[in-house]
């Protein structure tokens, strides 16, 4: 998990920006427990019942090539302390992700100074 590994490795950058990183997928809680152990500074959400995925409208219409299951389209939301969305990003390709530096820059640009 390169993406999560990179976010975990740079967690201090997000801590400095008073931003917690929540990572969500269609994993069940059994798999998510292992993911949480591997990435202790991230908050792992096991959205196997799609409550969060459907609320934010990120369900991918395609099926997982690995197991045929449903999956979320890679998307990032920045949310301020009041629960208001400050930024939405989706890469143009499934093989692209924001780097930790990109995410930190987006936080600075879109959430800095929000009360």
């Amino acid at each position, binding site marked *: *998990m*390169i*993406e*999560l*590994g990179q*976010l975990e490795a740079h967690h201090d950058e*997000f801590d400095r*920006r*008073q*931003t*917690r990183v*929540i*990572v*969500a*997928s269609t994993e069940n*809680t059994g798999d998510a*427990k292992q*993911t*949480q152990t591997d990435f202790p500074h991230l908050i*792992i*959400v*096991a*959205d*196997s019942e799609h*409550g*969060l995925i459907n*609320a*934010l*409208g*990120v369900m*991918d219409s395609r099926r*997982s090539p690995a197991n045929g299951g449903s*999956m*979320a*389209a*890679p*998307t*990032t*939301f*920045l*949310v*301020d*302390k*009041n*629960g*208001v*969305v400050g*930024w*939405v990003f*989706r*890469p*143009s*390709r499934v*093989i*692209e992700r924001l*780097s930790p530096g990109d*995410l930190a820059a987006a*936080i600075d640009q*879109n*959430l800095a100074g929000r009360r």
Partner: protein
Amino acid sequence: MSTEPATPNPRRSSRLFLWLGVLITILGPALYAAQIIQARRLTTPWYLPTSATIGLALVLWSIIKARTITRFALLAVIGLFAVAQWFFVAALSRLPEYAGPMAMGRPLPHFTSKRADGSAFTERDLAGTQNSAIVFFRGRW
């Protein structure tokens, strides 16, 4: 003793193009492996299909110089490789633009989900003293 200059063997002189084509084709996946394993950069590797296409052109050039069954076979393999890579990078990997209900300035809607430990996770957990970055991930990527 003959004084005539030696005529170049077309097969030998075109061999350089053949091997260069194969090398450049292989270089693409090697660079991508380095990008993922070493640099850990998850960006679109446009150089993958590009290198395969350059490799294909070089092998084609070597065939124009000297036709052999081996070269035609390599042309077919590298051609399929290039087509597959263009298809994957340009078409198959494309994501639709976000068309969900969220936009800048909108409050999060009510939702219910679970943390890894099985406890509830709702929109109320996102209010407080910290901002949040919600990242949807999938698979082992």
